[in-house]
């Protein structure tokens, strides 16, 4: 269970990007976050993913408050319990598919060198990229690159996947393939997924959708705000 209480975020230029956010995400939920551009979706999801530690309010993960924890603790949680998928993939361009997927394992305390290969082979198979291990990202299509990113996000068996517009750079057919992978992960491994999207078709894969407007969160809002 992930829970944030009274979370607010004010940027250095005094811009109030989020105010009074209260949100509970039970284990195994697939949650979509929607809202107009500039409404604060990324700002919120960065806080939920412990990428941003500079906010007001409280953050609970399994009843532990992670507000004001030190860098080592937060990095440890990010590395072992959370996986990230970004709109523009964020792969290291000079590293092969295999090496990109390996990165979270390098910083994880729980994996030894010997079982790295089998773990990586397994996730490569899960995202259907067998045979591409030694390719560079530039040698892959956008959809394939996003699969590499997903493989990297799940290689440490995270409880939570944070995805900021994972299909934003993909065509609709490829988007659906990617969403099916997410759905599969959510159903088979009970992985909690929090995903930002502009695309209703993509949001339909989620169990629940929350909306953000002007830095405020609206639950179960059915009204269609033109993005």
């Amino acid at each position, binding site marked *: 269970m992930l829970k944030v209480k009274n979370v607010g975020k004010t940027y250095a230029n005094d811009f109030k990007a989020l105010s009074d956010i209260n949100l509970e995400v039970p284990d195994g939920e697939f949650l979509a976050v929607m809202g107009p551009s500039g409404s604060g979706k990324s700002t919120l999801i*960065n806080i939920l*993913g412990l*990428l*941003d530690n*500079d906010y007001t309010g409280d953050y609970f993960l399994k009843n532990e408050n992670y507000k004001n924890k030190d*860098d*080592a603790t937060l*990095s*440890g949680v*990010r*590395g*072992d319990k959370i996986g*990230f998928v*970004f709109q*523009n993939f*964020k*792969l*290291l361009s*000079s*590293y092969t598919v295999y*090496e990109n997927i390996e*990165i*979270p394992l*390098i*910083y*994880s305390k729980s994996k030894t060198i010997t079982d790295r290969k089998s773990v990586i082979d397994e996730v490569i198979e899960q995202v259907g990229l067998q045979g591409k291990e030694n390719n560079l990202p530039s040698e892959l299509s956008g959809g394939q690159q996003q699969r590499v990113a997903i493989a*990297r996000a799940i290689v*440490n068996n995270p409880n939570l996947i944070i995805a900021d517009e994972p299909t934003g750079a993909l065509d609709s057919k490829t988007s659906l393939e990617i969403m099916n992978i997410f759905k599969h992960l959510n159903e088979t491994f009970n992985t909690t997924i929090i995903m930002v999207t502009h695309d209703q078709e993509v949001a339909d894969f989620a169990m629940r959708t929350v909306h953000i407007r002007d830095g405020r969160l609206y639950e179960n809002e059915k009204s269609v705000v033109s993005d």
Partner: protein
Amino acid sequence: MENLTIALRSIMKNKNRNLLTMLGIIIGIASVISILAVGDGFTQSITKELGKDNASNKVSLSYVTNSTDLNSIDGFTQGDAALMSDVDGVQSVKLSSYDNTKSVKLSYRGNSSKTYLGPIKKSSDGPKNVKKSILNDKNSYDVIISQSVKKDLFKKSSAIGKPIQIGEDMFIVRGVSDGGDEYSANVLVSKGTYKRIFSANSNKDQAKLTIENGKNKKKVSKAVLKKIKANGEYRREGKYHIDDPTKSMKSFQKVLNSVTYFVALVAGISLLIAGIGVMNVMYITVSERRNEIGIRRAFGATGNNIRNQFLTESIVLCVIGGIIGIILGYLAVLIINAFLPFKAVITIYSILISLLVSSAVGLLFGFIPSNKAAKSSLVGLLKEE
């Protein structure tokens, strides 16, 4: 260990840029090594030269005349020598002449010339077509004269085989050597001949004392000096003093020190340039790689992991560059040695210094940008493309 692997892999991922960085370090270190080698070689050759006169149980005393006459006969006498060897602690006394030349007057058929005469030191002295026997025979009356003396006495006619008068004796000219100047010996005779005819009545202005083992060298030589000052035969015509080998050493040391400082300055500047190169590349590297840092941080790397990775990268670069630089410097020294009158030497300490400095440069200039990168906001890093 993991750090080193990450760093090495990361270095391999950016071969070109890292080769450029290393090139700066390699050139810096290679020039430092060769500059230090030349400096050290120079110092060593000089100290070796000085060390020869610096045997532990030997002291030498000098006599400096007040007279301006080149042929004044004052100096140490056999009586003085006996006096000095009586002093407690003196094992033996040997008299000699400070400089191995003698002022002589030469003449040939009314032409005459006044110049210095000395013994042939090595068989390599003098013209090549002169027979070896001349140089070694102590009973010979053969001389080699310099071009300038030949001009004075013989003008344009040949000198070889002609008799010339030197002092009371007649000599035969056997060879003419090139050059010659006002101050060095322009007339050479064999060592034996020099000793037999010229050295006998040349003034002894140096007394070499051998001190008995276990005696205080300083004390004994002071006692000797006191005695000779009071009783020396020519004490009124000149002054006695103890030659301090460390004194000439000291003044040389001064010269050497300034050479060393200069060398250190040049070396330091080269290293500084290399260091600025490393810092520059590390800054570029870090700013180019902010996105990579963001990604690594998102997937579990702590700020410390990032700092260590970049530090390790720059140290590895500097150490590898340093080692290649040392090898290159070694090769450069081999080449330099073909052109130097002394031997440039690479000392362990110059290798240690340059390795130490290159890794310190890597550490220092790697730390600043990597520390900055480690402290950057994660969201900010990820936003950059």
